[in-house]
């Protein structure tokens, strides 16, 4: 009587994903780099590296350092800029039939709007993910994601400009995630994704200098999973729009933890670095779990967590 075929599709309301596994921005390149390992159309979606309007250099190295069960990164959002993306990358992603989600960045609110307007002209994009943890958007280098007013103002401006649905990606470095989540919801965000990286620091005791040129870096990987899961659960309880969960997911079991607390999809980040087929493996492991537990639709598992 075991379930033969599991319906892995999930509905975000504004978009139905063929399965709940997306890539996390900045950990899967623009997608095409990973074609030797992953048939892109098998993924729920490919979230691109963050795109500003212009090409960007990023930070000086060292940009990445390994810490216990995680990474600290201060890559600095280098990239080819939105026009080169549309010209050189997007057509190839479309050829591959990938579900494309573009991670949108900006140094100012105007830049976010400019990027989105430019992308709106192009075909073959499913929706946008707004990275409101970019530094330098507000004064003092603090990002909008740390403050409900700033979050509201960026999201509402971009939402008004954009012709496609918007997922706002939240930062975990806040006292009360519900406040920020509700601000994004009120500003019209169609969904939320979290977490971005946790702010961290590593010191080289020999040289007494930071291990990253940028001093601070963002922590990702298995180390952050329990923290990310808590934040996702709190967010699910705070809002009525879909939530996409991520942070430290390496196995199908990890992904199911996020779905159980109510995330409708997940993103896989750091795991891609050491296992380029992590996304496909995770889909498989989730499907396997569903078959073993007689769950015919993955949507039935979402939100099944009971305290």
């Amino acid at each position, binding site marked *: 009587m075991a379930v033969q075929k599991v319906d892995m599709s999930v509905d975000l309301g504004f978009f139905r994903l063929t399965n709940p596994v997306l890539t996390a921005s900045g950990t899967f390149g623009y997608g095409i780099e990973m074609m*030797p*390992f992953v048939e892109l159309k098998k993924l729920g979606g490919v979230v691109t590296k963050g795109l500003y309007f212009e090409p960007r250099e990023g930070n000086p190295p060292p940009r990445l350092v390994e810490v216990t069960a995680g*990474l600290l*990164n201060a890559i600095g959002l280098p990239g080819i800029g939105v026009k080169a993306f549309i010209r050189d990358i997007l057509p190839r992603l479309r050829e591959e039939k990938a579900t494309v989600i573009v991670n949108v960045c900006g140094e100012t609110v105007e830049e976010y709007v400019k990027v989105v307007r430019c992308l709106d002209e192009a075909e073959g994009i499913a929706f946008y993910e707004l990275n409101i943890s970019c530094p330098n958007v507000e004064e003092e280098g603090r990002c909008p994601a740390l403050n409900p007013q700033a979050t509201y103002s960026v999201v509402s401006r971009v939402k008004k400009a954009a012709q496609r649905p918007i997922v706002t990606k939240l930062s975990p470095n806040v006292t009360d995630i519900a406040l920020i989540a509700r601000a994004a919801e009120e500003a019209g965000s169609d969904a939320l994704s979290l977490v971005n990286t946790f702010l961290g620091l590593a010191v080289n005791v020999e040289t007494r200098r930071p291990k990253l040129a940028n001093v601070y870096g963002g922590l990702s990987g298995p180390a952050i999973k329990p923290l990310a899961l808590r934040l996702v659960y709190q967010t699910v309880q705070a809002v009525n729009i879909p939530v996409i969960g991520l942070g430290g997911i390496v196995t199908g079991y990890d992904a199911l933890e996020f779905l159980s607390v109510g995330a409708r999809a997940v993103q896989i980040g*750091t795991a*891609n670095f050491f296992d380029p087929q992590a996304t496909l493996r995770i889909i498989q492991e989730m499907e396997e779990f569903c078959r073993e537990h007689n769950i015919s639709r993955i949507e039935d598992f979402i939100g099944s967590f009971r305290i």
Partner: protein
Amino acid sequence: MEREVCLVQAKILEKYKWGQYILFYLFAPEISKLAKPGQFVMIRVSEQFIPLLRRPFSLMSVDPSEGRIAIFFQIVGRGTSRLSQYSPGESLSLIGPLGQGYSLSVLKPGDKVILVGGGRGIAPLFFLAQQLKEKKIRVMIFYGGKSAQDLPLKSLIEEELGVEELVLATEDGSLGEKGLVTEVLERKEIWPRIERVYVCGPEAMMRKIARMIEVWGVPGEFSLETYMGCGLGICWSCVRRIKKANSWSWVKICEEGPVFPGEVIKWEED
């Protein structure tokens, strides 16, 4: 960018150990068929999360007919230490071949080239020498290290590579000529007869050679090392300043390198 890259489980066929240096022969037929000298593989050293990331290692020897490849590495930290504990019969997860290798096509039979390897930097040059031999290029290898223990591949080079000349240099004089390999290189007045130089080793050594060959006008290719988060071009961590269209850009070494001509590299100062 539709690269041919494989993700394989490669069985360890043979293992040799000299102090802190390890040589593994692995069975990886797909990689052996695609590999070019200067390319590398990313190896997962632990299925646990510590260390989390793969580690990059140059292909040191390749035998496509037997499906064998070799890596040669020095134990310098947690990852290499863990890797050194694997034994023949066990398998390692490998991704490769990655990166752009040394260019050989510019050479014609009878040309004379120099290979300069410092310590573990000999690894990609060994593979290069294998291919240069097949192309009937005349090869001179400079192989340097702190002391005799740092030149464990001496015999293997002599036995397998049939190079025209092998110059050994140790800082303490315990083997070959005494001094830094760069000093020994300087003493030999060979530059006018040399078509090309291929270098891999510590930054300081490579930088000195880059200056030297600039003076002599000999083209050189250098294999750079940076911290590599993925080796696949997706993490943007491995950048170095490389000259492109006459300006210095941060370039991903794992994709466009690790080998670059000397004139486009911005050297790190100590």
